[in-house]
């Protein structure tokens, strides 16, 4: 049996996937260089998996609204959080979020965001990272819904990496959710919605393990929230409030 004969489909797949050992990858490369038929076989399996992944990310954004079954009262607090996720993440991923369930008052929209944010983990954002094109397109749609000039440059911060933006809805009004990972890969959400009222300086509120910086500016309410210490949010709050000055 020749060297080429020993290289099977599995070995070629591993090389193309980048999961082959260095020795195996080298052996396949050398064999392909000597055997045009094997090289053609490898080339016939060479597809850009990134394109497939990006397309499937787009499919994810088309997911319909879905509800979970009604639960016993014993788990209602968690169910409310779960409902928040369904309302926000599932529905609005496709831009069709349902109205919230009574989060109307000023304090309650902050609580609604906190309820939602508590369910985010690092894996939520790293499992299916969006390609830049889709990420920027989401930001553009979100900006249009809010009537704000949100560009990748304006939402960028020094210590957090912008991941994605989507349009949510609360009591019939659009709510922008911009999601970041901080330097420690903690998920941070920056949410904006139209709110009447005078401008206010940022203040800190605690929602369980979630720390939030909250302020009002130019007819919009802002909240920056994540499972981090207050000091971790102060610089980002300053950057964002200055860049998005209205």
């Amino acid at each position, binding site marked *: 049996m020749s060297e080429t004969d020993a290289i099977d*489909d*599995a070995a*070629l*797949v*591993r090389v*193309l*996937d980048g*999961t082959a050992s260095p020795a195996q990858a080298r052996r396949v490369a050398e064999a392909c260089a000597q055997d045009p038929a094997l090289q053609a076989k490898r080339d*016939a*399996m*060479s*597809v850009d*998996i990134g*394109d*497939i*992944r*990006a*397309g*499937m*990310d*787009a*499919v*994810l*954004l*088309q*997911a*319909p609204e*879905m*509800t*979970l*079954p*009604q*639960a*016993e009262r*014993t*788990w209602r607090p*968690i*169910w409310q*959080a*779960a*409902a928040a*996720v*369904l309302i926000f*993440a*599932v529905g609005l*991923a*496709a831009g069709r979020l349902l109205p919230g369930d009574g989060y109307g008052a000023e304090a309650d929209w902050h609580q609604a965001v906190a309820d939602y944010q508590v*369910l*985010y983990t690092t894996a*939520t954002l790293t*499992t*299916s990272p969006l390609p830049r*094109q*889709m990420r920027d*397109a989401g930001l553009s*749609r979100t900006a249009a819904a809010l009537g704000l000039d949100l560009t990748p440059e304006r939402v960028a911060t020094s210590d957090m990496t912008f991941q994605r933006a989507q349009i949510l809805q609360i009591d019939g009004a659009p709510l922008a959710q911009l999601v970041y990972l901080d330097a420690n890969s903690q998920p941070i959400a920056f949410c904006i919605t139209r709110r009447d009222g005078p401008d206010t300086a940022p203040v800190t509120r605690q929602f369980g393990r979630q720390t939030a910086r909250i302020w009002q500016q130019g007819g919009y309410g802002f909240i920056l929230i994540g499972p981090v210490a207050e000091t971790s949010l102060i610089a980002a709050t300053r950057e964002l409030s200055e860049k998005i000055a209205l």
Partner: protein
Amino acid sequence: MRVFHAAKVEHATGGKIQLGAKKSDREVRKGLPALMPRLWRYGLVLSGDRAIAQDLAQATALRALERSSQFRPGTRLDHWCFSILSSIWKNDRRAHKVRMGLGQVPAEEAGLVDPAPGADVNILASRVLSLAAQLPEAQREAIFLVYVEGFSYAEAAKRMEIPIGTVMSRLANGRRRLKQTMGEDDV
């Protein structure tokens, strides 16, 4: 055609899902809502039908809540739920003796593309679903689990209850079919 009936599950539990305060319950309840779009997508890849995919995701959520005590805290909730969804899909298909699959039908004709006008993402989605439609279900599932959901070969083998060698074979054949189809599209 909707195959999965959430109401049956709800009826079986008296219309309520009984849950305790165990850690496994909490993890399932906490993680499940964010998983729903991915469950729907997996259902769509398997069934090729948006409505069936939605029913599959809903039925999976119900079963996961019912059986949350069986979930081992700290393990992959997404993998556990994918396993449930696949089981529901295969059992239901077996029961109905229905041969589902996308065959050679373009994604648009199969009702796979969101009819809402618009965004570039719909074009991306349409293209990848059309490509997926060209693959036999076994190859489609292997490609999806490994390359989209990030399963290792071993995890995919466990999920699909097949040897790793068969996973590799399906990936190789799937890659060949995709390459061929993408080449035809370019022409």
